[in-house]
């Protein structure tokens, strides 16, 4: 038998003080991690070849959650397909909806009122917070800290109540429509959001107080799972993982969509390239999201939904009367205050033939959708580009030479969600 070193001369542990050049012979051990494993965040199977405790090779086996989301779109009308998009990526489903409706808006040239854009941005950024909160909780749980997990769920719950008041659902919103949103804001909703924005930064401080400087967390994350910029670009890794290498690629800044160019926010980056840097970037992103939401609340055209709904009813009634009696003055109604850019009959809606693609910055990275329509109510072809798939594909090379015990820290820091990988 040969020694480990002879078997694979390149295999080097990059941990200080851990050497695999031991003078004894070992056999490789193949370990199946998953598909049902609490730390794989869904059904992911990792076929891992271990040399002692060091990962030699790793092969992700995916597809357990495949629900043919793309094919489903070809057999359903666009509106019929819309609720199922929520399930592409259930932790941040507003983003899936946004790319989808943006594509159709591009194809059919539907205007989007300003108020809708602001409502959408508030929803998106709140959704980014819930998504990052779940990541924060589970990431620390994988590392053995169970307290922050419950705190995160407490705060997610608050945002979900806010979402429920708006859309009626807690996770599967089905809220955005082509050129608008399903329902206007309920009375007092903006105040609820503001109240959350006011106390959430304090909560974040608490999270950071237990985790950020914790020596165990730092030991397990600092210097581990180093992804350089070149490595990220090679695998198409985007999102916080890429920004943790110092590359400030954030589509909200680089290719502003919606109303992001009217808002003032920073793109948090870090040059650490390691698991710890990815952790810091995500925590900072939550603070930036709060900043964005606060600006949106102040800037949203039309303001709170309650007064606006009353005004809208009055305008509609007066417009009807004014047709008969021209002396009646109709109160001012701004086009920006609408919740639909164009009246669309969702039952029979047929977009013109065309194609469009759209990319947005989801909490996990660049999320894209490509749609071809052929003039029928159904799409001819729909293609999804999820960030999780690319981020996961980088894992095998990233894990090479790492200790088995680091797997969950490194994998967790990529924030992969399986429904988005398998679709």
């Amino acid at each position: 038998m040969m020694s480990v070193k002879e078997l694979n001369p390149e295999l080097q542990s990059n941990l200080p003080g851990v050497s695999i050049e031991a003078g004894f012979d070992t056999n490789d051990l193949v370990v199946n991690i998953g598909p049902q494993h609490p730390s794989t965040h869904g059904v992911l199977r990792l076929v891992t070849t271990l040399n002692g405790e060091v990962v030699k090779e790793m092969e992700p086996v995916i597809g357990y959650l495949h629900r043919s989301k793309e094919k489903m779109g070809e057999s359903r009308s666009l509106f019929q397909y819309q609720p199922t998009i929520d399930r592409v990526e259930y932790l941040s489903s507003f983003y899936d909806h946004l790319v989808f409706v943006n594509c159709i808006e591009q194809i059919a040239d539907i205007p989007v009122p300003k108020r809708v854009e602001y409502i959408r941005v508030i929803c998106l950024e709140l959704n980014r917070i819930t998504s990052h909160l779940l990541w924060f909780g589970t990431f620390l749980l994988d590392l053995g800290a169970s307290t922050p997990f419950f705190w995160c769920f407490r705060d997610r719950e608050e945002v979900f109540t806010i979402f429920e008041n708006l859309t009626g659902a807690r996770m599967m919103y089905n809220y955005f429509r082509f050129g608008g949103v399903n329902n206007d804001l309920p009375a007092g909703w903006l105040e609820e959001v503001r109240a959350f924005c006011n106390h959430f930064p304090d909560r974040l401080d608490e999270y950071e107080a237990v985790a950020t400087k914790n020596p165990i967390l730092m030991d397990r994350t600092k210097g581990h799972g180093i992804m350089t910029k070149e490595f990220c670009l090679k695998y198409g890794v985007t999102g916080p993982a890429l920004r943790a290498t110092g590359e400030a690629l954030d589509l909200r800044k680089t290719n502003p969509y919606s109303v992001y160019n009217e808002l003032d926010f920073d793109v948090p980056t870090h040059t650490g390239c390691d698991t710890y840097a990815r952790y810091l970037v995500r925590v900072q992103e939550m603070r930036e999201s709060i900043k964005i939401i606060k600006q949106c609340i102040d800037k949203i055209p039309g303001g709170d939904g309650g007064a606006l709904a009353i005004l809208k009813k009055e305008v509609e009634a007066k417009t009807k009367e004014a047709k008969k009696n021209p002396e009646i003055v109709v109160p001012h109604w701004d086009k920006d205050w609408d919740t639909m850019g164009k009246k669309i009959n969702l039952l029979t809606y047929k977009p013109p033939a065309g194609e469009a693609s759209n990319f947005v910055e989801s909490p996990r990275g660049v999320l894209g959708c490509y749609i071809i329509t052929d003039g029928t109510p159904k799409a001819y072809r729909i293609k999804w580009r999820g960030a999780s798939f690319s981020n996961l594909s980088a894992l095998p090379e990233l894990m090479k030479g790492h200790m088995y015990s680091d797997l969950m820290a490194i994998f967790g820091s990529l924030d992969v969600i399986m429904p988005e990988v398998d679709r």
Partner: protein
Amino acid sequence: MSNHSHDAQHPLNAIEHAEGNVVLEGIKAIAQGFATVLKHHPREAVTLEYPEVMPELSDRFHGRLSLLSKSDDTDLCIGCQACARVCPCDDLIQIDMHRDDDKKPVVTRFTIDMGRCIFCGNCTEVCPVDCIKMLSDFELADYSREALVLDKKDLTLSGQESDEWRAKRGYTPTVL
């Protein structure tokens, strides 16, 4: 700790050689963590003792589907099939209707398989007469799949209940 002080490569030494006193910093961070956890102790619990305490649900909550009636207890549904056509789950809603002698629509069968419903609310959005709507009822568990297929009798609300629903959610029906 001095036993391996000559070996700079040793991991324990790496900690000592780092800037500042890492051990002290670590103790400080852990103490801060504990203090934060203790701060939570006097706070009020956020969990609810369900089912003794029921959650307060929003007016827009996506719960069990129902068919509203007119105030005089007659059917509102005109059997137009719009709700069935936009449902993402294909044949989940099944409707049979015919027209009586006055050409008025009569719905003879209306079933919804709640076991397969994904509570998306698509059907409620396209109904031309605001008939199919969602209640705040979320306790739908049953012993068999068949029991979850609700027929017209299970779904229809009385005229009074419908009026209450409309008043609560601020609905002005398009047709009554």
